[in-house]
């Protein structure tokens, strides 16, 4: 196993097949989000009842978030978590198919973000697979600064981003971490121009040389520290930004913290550990308040790359 595969256990590939996705897209067009929600309840119930392999994927997280739960309660939590993910995916598709007006998105900390962008050293938005980060990113238009998004999509992934439905092209500049030098030069270039760079702080990208161990929900997991190193090299502040579904048709995007990484921290990965740990702590606080809007369905804590 090479170091990249060992470091990265997640996949962006959807559980559903292409026709299942198309069926939901059609349902949204014909009946709106509510029709799609209605079908979703039954499909999630099917998966939870007859596909224990899928249910198991939520248990890595749930076991740590709710350590005292018994099997029945755990089943219910798994159902809730999967249902919330389904709703978020429907909402995301609905924004692309029906238009952004189907959802309202509020941004808490807008002034703070504008001040950080105003510093002129670029801004790293560190997000996570919680809530609906893609829909929430629509709220970033108020920054009036180009937004670059570090994102890796698997070959053959049938799940679409919201902008792919409307055919208008991505409102963000996509940086592929599989590109030249993992996209690091592109990321630094964007920040040096004073632009916004959005990264996911909870997923491993690249080799295990770029990872540090942090404590999250009681156990150790590996996270990538490249973003903190880039922040140190460029002087760009890091704003930790989480989204959450607050109602049937509303989302909130909130600045949960600002991380400033000093310059000249050098090559030692340990120097970046406190900043990665701070992010993990903020993410943990999010899961306390929004336990079923955390969408990492793999064993984030398995540092050996098995399973």
């Amino acid at each position, binding site marked *: 196993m090479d170091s990249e595969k060992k470091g990265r256990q997640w996949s962006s590939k959807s559980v559903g097949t292409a026709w299942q996705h198309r069926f939901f897209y059609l349902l949204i067009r014909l009946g709106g989000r509510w029709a799609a929600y209605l079908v979703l309840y039954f499909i999630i119930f099917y998966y939870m009842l007859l596909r224990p392999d899928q249910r198991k994927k939520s248990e890595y997280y749930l076991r740590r978030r709710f350590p005292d739960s018994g099997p029945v309660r755990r089943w219910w939590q798994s159902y809730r978590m999967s249902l919330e993910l389904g709703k978020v995916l429907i909402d995301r598709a609905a924004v692309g198919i029906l238009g952004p007006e189907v959802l309202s998105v509020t941004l808490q900390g807008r002034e703070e973000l504008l001040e950080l962008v105003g510093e002129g050293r670029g801004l790293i938005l560190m997000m996570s697979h919680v809530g609906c980060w893609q829909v929430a990113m629509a709220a970033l238009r108020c920054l009036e600064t180009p937004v670059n998004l570090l994102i890796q999509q698997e070959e053959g992934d049938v799940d679409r981003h919201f902008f792919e439905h409307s055919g208008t092209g991505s409102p963000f500049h996509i940086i592929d971490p599989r590109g030249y*030098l993992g996209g690091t*030069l592109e990321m*630094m270039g964007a920040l040096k121009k004073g632009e916004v760079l959005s990264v996911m702080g909870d997923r491993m990208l690249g080799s295990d*040389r770029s990872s540090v161990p942090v404590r999250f929900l009681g156990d150790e997991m590996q996270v990538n520290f490249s973003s903190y*190193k880039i922040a140190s*090299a460029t002087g760009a502040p890091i704003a930790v930004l989480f989204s959450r579904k607050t109602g049937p048709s509303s989302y909130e995007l909130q600045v949960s913290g600002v991380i400033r990484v000093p310059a000249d921290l050098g*090559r030692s990965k340990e120097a970046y550990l406190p900043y990665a740990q701070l992010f993990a702590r903020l993410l943990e606080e999010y899961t306390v308040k929004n336990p079923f809007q955390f969408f990492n369905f793999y064993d984030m804590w398995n540092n050996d790359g098995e399973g």
Partner: protein
Amino acid sequence: MAIKEKLKKILVEELNLEDMTAEEIEDSTPLFGEGLGLDSLDAVELVVLIQKHFGIEIQDMEEGREAFESVETLAGFIDERLKG
């Protein structure tokens, strides 16, 4: 000290190239991948080191991409900037 020699010394000493001396680095050896074996994290460090030692900020990353091919191209890039 010539730019190439200074660069090689920086690479060995500050990027901790193991089992290699500055004299052993060929001018045309690729910096990344199969050549010297540097990776994306080293690229970030290299941008910082070039600014620190030569006072040159790599703003245009496309330009940086060409410069980062080998010691020779990087030295040429630095020389051009210092003259300009």
